[in-house]
C-alpha cells in the first residue's frame, strides 16, 4: 500500500481539477459526520462529475478522493483507517489505469479498466439505494402522511394474519431469560491503585527523613493484604516524586535505563507548595 501511495505522488493531475477537487473536498469534510464510509464519500464526489455513474472517470474520481484525504489531513481531521485504505487502493488503481499496459496481462490481477468499471457499478448500486430511500420516503407514510382510524370500534376484528415468523421475538424471549439466569452478584471493583494525591501527601510527609539518596522501591509503600498493588504503589510514588522535583522539594536521579531511581530531599526549607 505504501508503494502504491508513492506511485501516486509521481502522477500529477491537472491544476484546475486539483483546485476544484480541493474546494469540493473541503466542503465534504465539513459534513463528514453525515458520511458513513469511504464509499459514501466516493459517491458524493462522483455525483459532482455530473455524468451517469457508470461513465464516470475513475482516474478523476481518484484525484478527487485523494484531494479529499489531503484536505482532511490539512485540517488535522482524523480519518478512519478504511478511508486511508481506499485512498491507497484508488491511487494504485489510478496508476494502473494511466501507466502503459504491460505486455503480458497479469494473471492474478484483473485488468484495471475492469476494476474501475466494477467500482463505478458499485457506486451506481449505492446511488440506487439512495434513490430507493428517497422513493420510499416520498410514499404516503402511515402516521406521517396518512392516518388510519384513530378510534377503531372493534379491536377484536383483527386480521387472520398468519403470525409472521417472529423469530426475533423468540430469540429475544430466550436471551431475556438466560440473562436473568446469569448470576447477578455484581461486585464493584475496589480501587486497586494508590491515588496520586495520597502518594504525594505521603511522600511530602516523608521528606524530612529523606536526607540521603534512598531507592524509590524503598520509599514506595509495601503491598498489603488488600489495597493497591505493588506496581501501582511504585508508579504513583514515582509520579509524586516527579511532582515534588518540579516543585523544588526533592531531587531524583537514575544512573541508567531500568536502574533504581534514588530520591533525596532538597536541602533548605520546603516550599510548602499547595496543590
Amino acid at each position, binding site marked *: 500500500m505504501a508503494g502504491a501511495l508513492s506511485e501516486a505522488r509521481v502522477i500529477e493531475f491537472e491544476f484546475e481539477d486539483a483546485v476544484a477537487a480541493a474546494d469540493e473536498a473541503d466542503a465534504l469534510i465539513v459534513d463528514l459526520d453525515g458520511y458513513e464510509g469511504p464509499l459514501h464519500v466516493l459517491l458524493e464526489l462522483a455525483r459532482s462529475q455530473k455524468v451517469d455513474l457508470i461513465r464516470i472517470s475513475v482516474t478523476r474520481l481518484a484525484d478527487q478522493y485523494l484531494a479529499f484525504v489531503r484536505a482532511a489531513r490539512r485540517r488535522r481531521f482524523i480519518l478512519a483507517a478504511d478511508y486511508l485504505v481506499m485512498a491507497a487502493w484508488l491511487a494504485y488503481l489510478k496508476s494502473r489505469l494511466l501507466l502503459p499496459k504491460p505486455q503480458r496481462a497479469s494473471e492474478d490481477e484483473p485488468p484495471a479498466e475492469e476494476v474501475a468499471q466494477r467500482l463505478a457499478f458499485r457506486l451506481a448500486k449505492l446511488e440506487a439505494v439512495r434513490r430507493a430511500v428517497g422513493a420510499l420516503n416520498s410514499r404516503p407514510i402511515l402516521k406521517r402522511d396518512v392516518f388510519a382510524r*384513530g378510534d377503531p370500534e372493534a379491536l377484536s376484528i383483527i386480521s387472520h394474519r398468519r403470525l*409472521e415468523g417472529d*423469530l426475533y421475538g*423468540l*430469540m429475544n*424471549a*430466550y436471551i*431475556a*431469560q438466560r440473562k436473568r*439466569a446469569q448470576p447477578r452478584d455484581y461486585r464493584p471493583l475496589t480501587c486497586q491503585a494508590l491515588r496520586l494525591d495520597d502518594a504525594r501527601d505521603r511522600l511530602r510527609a516523608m521528606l524530612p527523613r529523606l536526607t540521603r539518596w534512598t531507592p524509590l522501591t524503598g520509599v514506595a509503600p509495601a503491598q498489603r493484604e488488600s489495597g493497591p498493588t505493588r506496581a501501582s504503589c511504585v508508579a504513583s510514588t514515582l509520579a509524586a516524586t516527579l511532582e515534588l522535583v518540579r516543585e523544588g522539594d526533592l531531587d531524583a536521579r537514575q544512573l541508567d535505563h531500568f536502574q533504581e531511581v534514588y530520591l533525596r530531599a532538597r536541602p533548605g526549607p520546603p516550599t510548602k507548595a499547595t496543590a
Partner: protein
Amino acid sequence: MIDPSAIERMIEALLFAAAEPLSDVDLAARLPLDADVAAGLDALRRRYEGRGVELVEVARRWRFQTATDLAFLMTVEREESRRLSRAAQETLAIIAYHQPVTRADIEAVRGVQASRGTLDVLLEQGLVRMRGRRRSPGRPVTYGTTDAFLEHFGLASLADLPGAAEMKAAGLLSLDLPADFQVPDPTLARADEDPLDDVPAPEFHQDFLAGGEEP
C-alpha cells in the same frame, strides 16, 4: 372563502383519524380560519346518512360510528388470540433451544415455577410435544417442539433455529453476558432420553395427570 366541499373533506379526515370525538371548537381550531364548521358537519352528516358508517353527535362532540343495524357484524366471536403470552413465549423459547427438557429444566432456566397453564397452552396449540423420558430418577417427561412449531416460525428444520451468531448479529447478546455464554444446539439430541413410545399407554395417562409441577 374556501370551497365548502374542501372543508367537508377536512372534517371527514379529522374525525376519522381522531382518537376521540371532536367538538365544533376542536374542529375549528384545526381548520382554516374562515371555515364554516357547522355547514361542513351538516354536509358530512347528510353524505353519510344510510351508509355503513354514520356521523353522530354525542355529548356535543362528533364522531363516526358504524350504523346501528350493522352492529351484528361487530359482535365478533371471541377469536382465540394467536399471540402467545410472554410466559408462553419464554417457555417455548427454552423448549426450542434446550430440548429435550423436563419441566424442572424449564423452571431452572426461568427461575420461576412453570405455571401449569403455560405448558398446557403450548401443548394445546401443538407447538410443543412430549418427546420422551429422561433417564433419571422419576423418569420425568421431556418436551420438545413440533413440526407445527417449525411451520409457525417458518423454519425448514431445527437446524435453522438462529444460534448465538445470529443473536449477536441482531444485537441481542449484550456485553454483560459471560464470555463462555452458549446457546445449545437443539439438533444434538441428548443421549439420556428414552423414547416415549416405550412407555405403556395407560401409565402414560396416569403419569401425565399425576405429573405435578414439582421437580
